């Protein structure tokens, strides 16, 4: 195992530019869980970002909350203003592993680990977060809902580092985060759901029901148009258009689909159009 320890962002970007196979690590929480069994991971080169202090703090501008590339879940949990303006961030952060993981794990790491079952990504996406990537070639901004192209595939080049996550500040009239795991804490999501409503419209984001975390345009449309929905079953066609769950070791496609429809139906009961 080869670990590089850059002391500054330019140095880190140089390292990533010169070794296309090097993997940046922040909290290390995804990597180390599987370390004993993934022997092939032992031969790789890692760029340890822990000394890049400039990427650690979260900051506020007039119109944005900006999470740094190394901002942890715990940083957000502790931030009173974040709890007030973006409560789903803290709700989701508290669902990630245990406190030890929350203290080390980063939002940027959650994005680039690209797990379809991520807890942090759905709430960021529901808040229209934008991923800021930087490399020796310059800066690039990618809206999170266009960041993933397939299972573990994303619009990040090997030489790019996530340096910021920018979240627009808006008033929200509705927001909810639901995580359904196999137990009440320290579980990987079987179904995750983040829903927000603001002046920009409805955002419905689903986790663990597709190869990537994704928005659900068909369900969003039902909400925008005030379509009459009288039962969870009535949501199934839209859910089927938006997501593609699978049977795996944690749950079944059927369970995931039905739970998603039931959560949407019951949580948004006041917003579905009524017949007649």
């Amino acid at each position, binding site marked *: 195992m080869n670990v590089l320890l850059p002391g500054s962002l330019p140095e880190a970007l140089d390292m990533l530019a010169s070794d296309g196979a090097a993997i940046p690590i922040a909290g290390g929480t995804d990597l180390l869980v599987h370390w004993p*069994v993934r022997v092939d991971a032992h031969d790789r080169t890692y760029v340890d970002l822990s000394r890049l202090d400039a990427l650690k703090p979260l900051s506020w501008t007039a119109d944005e909350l900006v999470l740094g590339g190394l901002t942890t879940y715990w940083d957000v949990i502790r931030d009173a203003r974040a709890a007030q303006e973006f409560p789903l961030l803290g709700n989701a952060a508290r669902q990630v592993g245990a406190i030890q993981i929350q203290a080390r794990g980063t939002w940027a790491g959650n994005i680039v680990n690209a797990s379809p079952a991520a807890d942090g990504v759905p709430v960021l996406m529901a808040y229209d977060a934008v991923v800021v990537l930087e490399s020796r070639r310059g800066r690039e901004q990618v809206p999170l809902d266009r960041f993933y192209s397939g299972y573990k595939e994303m619009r990040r080049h090997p030489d790019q580092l996530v340096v910021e996550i920018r979240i627009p500040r808006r008033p929200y009239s509705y927001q909810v985060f639901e995580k*359904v795991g196999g137990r009440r804490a320290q579980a990987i999501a079987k179904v995750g759901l983040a829903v927000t409503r603001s002046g920009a419209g409805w955002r419905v984001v689903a986790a663990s029901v597709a190869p990537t975390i994704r928005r659900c345009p068909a369900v969003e449309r039902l909400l925008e148009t005030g379509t009459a929905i009288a039962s969870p079953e009535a949501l199934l066609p839209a859910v089927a258009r938006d997501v593609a769950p699978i049977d795996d070791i944690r749950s079944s496609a059927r369970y995931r689909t039905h*739970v998603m429809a*039931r959560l949407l139906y019951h949580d948004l009961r006041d917003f579905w159009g009524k017949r007649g």
Partner: protein
Amino acid sequence: MRRREALAKLTGRERYVDDLPLDDFLWGMTVRSPAPRGRVTAIRFGTDIAWPEFVVVDHRDIPGPNVVALIEQDQPVLAAGYVRHVHEPVLLLAHPSREALRRAARSIEVVVAPEPPALDFRAPPGPAEIQYGTDNVLKRLQIVKGDVERALARAAVVVSGTYETGAQEHVYLEPQGMIASFEGAVLVVKGSMQCPYYVLKALQHALAREEALVRVIQTPTGGGFGGKEEFPSHIALHAALLALKSGRPVKLIYDRGEDMAATTKRHPALVRHRTGLGRDGRLLAQDIEVVIDGGAYVTLSPVVLSRAIIHAAGPYACDHVRISGRAMFTNAVPFGAFRGFGAPQSQFAGERHMDVIARTLGMDAVELRRINLLADGQSTATGQVIQDGTDRLAVMERALELSRYREKQRGHAAFNATHATLRRGSGLATFYHGAGFTGGGEVALQSRVRVAGRPDGRIEVLSANIEMGQGTLTVFTELAAARLGVAPEDVTVAEADTARVPNSGPTVASRTTMIVGGLLERAADDLRRRVGLDDTARGAAVQQAIRRWHREHPGEPLVGEAAYERPPGIAWDDTTYRGDAYGAFAWAAYVAEVEVDLRTCATRVIDFVAVQEVGKVLNPTLAKGQVQGGVVQGIGWALMEECKWREGAMANNQLTNYLIPTSDDVPSVRVAFLENPYPHGAGGAKGLGELPIDGPAPAIANAVARATGADPRAIPLTPEKLMELLEIADFGLRIADSAP
């Protein structure tokens, strides 16, 4: 008294086998079968490994018979050209670097010419799948009382049901591990285990060594739950073979993934009931079939089956009972001992069936139990007349009272009528657990305990029964201190080292306090007699006499000893399965209250009451802890702990995908004891360790049935399964609504 080893464990000072200092040693590792059944046609070693650096052991390196000695001599130490389950050990490797070892093990390919495996214990095997006897039945047992067919034919009502329980992983915090080394010609094996003398015997047998040349030492053990009953013999043998071949100490420690994949689990079971009843709900006939999955070798399946069938009829009076049991061979990783040892499986079925009967008869589930619970003078299925003076109705009443069962039932009805997505209900289970080895087992063990008086007047307890978190050190200290009237600080408990301690039998079967503790008391009496005192002498008088004895007998050991004697009036016939199955039963009634979220079909246990009669409670804190731990383990087994199988091996062998309850999944578990001292147990105690795993699962499943109208017959009752059941229940409801 505070738990003896508590501070060492809380502060991290306790040294488990992996923490022991060791010089110039090799790491050991096991290469396993990739296939469930077949002939090993080749073993291909990777070409990019410096093999001369490695010690490699196969079955030809075993000095004695290639067998891990247990009930049947069928399980090889290392597969000899033929494998019967995935993960069966084929080769052993050792190397100074664990990393190099992992790479080397990964580079080896065990090539197996596949043959058709038997993977479903519930279905009759196809001809090509027969691998044990003529029908893959490892063991058949039957209990017969009265004439069940005649009684069924005459019964006013017959209620049938089929129930299933899944495998369960022990999830002891400390994975399995052993160190083997040599002290001169003596092979010394240290590690995490429940039964040092089982390990000793297995080493002697397969290594063809006399007892004097083998020494087994138990290291502080981070949980066992039965998982460290028979399995540690395998790791001990593997480490010893590598140490023999290399001449160096070898440390073989499983990581969590290997431990979960390759070691034993609770036996999956299928239980069928056919019950004849009078219109008043009285049990007239119980016809029960118990089938368990034994896996690819016999291990302890015959005795697990035995305990399963003995407990299958429940703590009820019934004159006509037939219980047939079968343990099936399959090509699954062998199943083994797990807290409860068959009784949780058969009592899940029995107690769930009681509620199914109540629903069928339109009867109250409490009333059904009240009518049928054993009264003194009545007999169990094996004909054991219960005459212990315990008021079993009072045990149940206390549980109902503490849980406010009736009051809550009314509250639940109102709650369920108004809440959009949540449903609540309570469920009851009444059950029992026999302590100690079954039937003549304790006599066969010939357990012995010693209590030594040391020159400074201190007392030392010598037994092979070990601490694994359940409190042996503390309870043995208390028992010796109380018996001799000395301060607990003046009592030590010897390390379980077969070179020093006598064979007091295995640390299993809820026998340590009741049976071995009783031997300890008698050994203490013997010590007192050896220094010329009678049983009334206590405290300073005893310690002074010990010191005086040593002054008069310099250099000689002063040891009191006791050997097991069958309590008077106990008789068991192993050929007919009739008689007194256990010296004593503990009795219990548990009530679970659940809340089901209809959106996710997740069940949450929101309140739990556990009432039991276990004789005299020796240490209330430890006893309460045992019960609470058992209830939590039962909640896991009932609701979330699910082994996902791939070719008879666990596919979800990680704690991320095999879920056990967190503190947030567990309600307050309220524990109460009714005390009725047992004359033949230490300090009046009966066995307690296993009882609490028998009741939670049926109580929870009964509560879910009550809350939702679903009819769960199998555990784990995961949200996925409950969703299907609720759809069936809803459908049933709609049919009922539309009926004229």
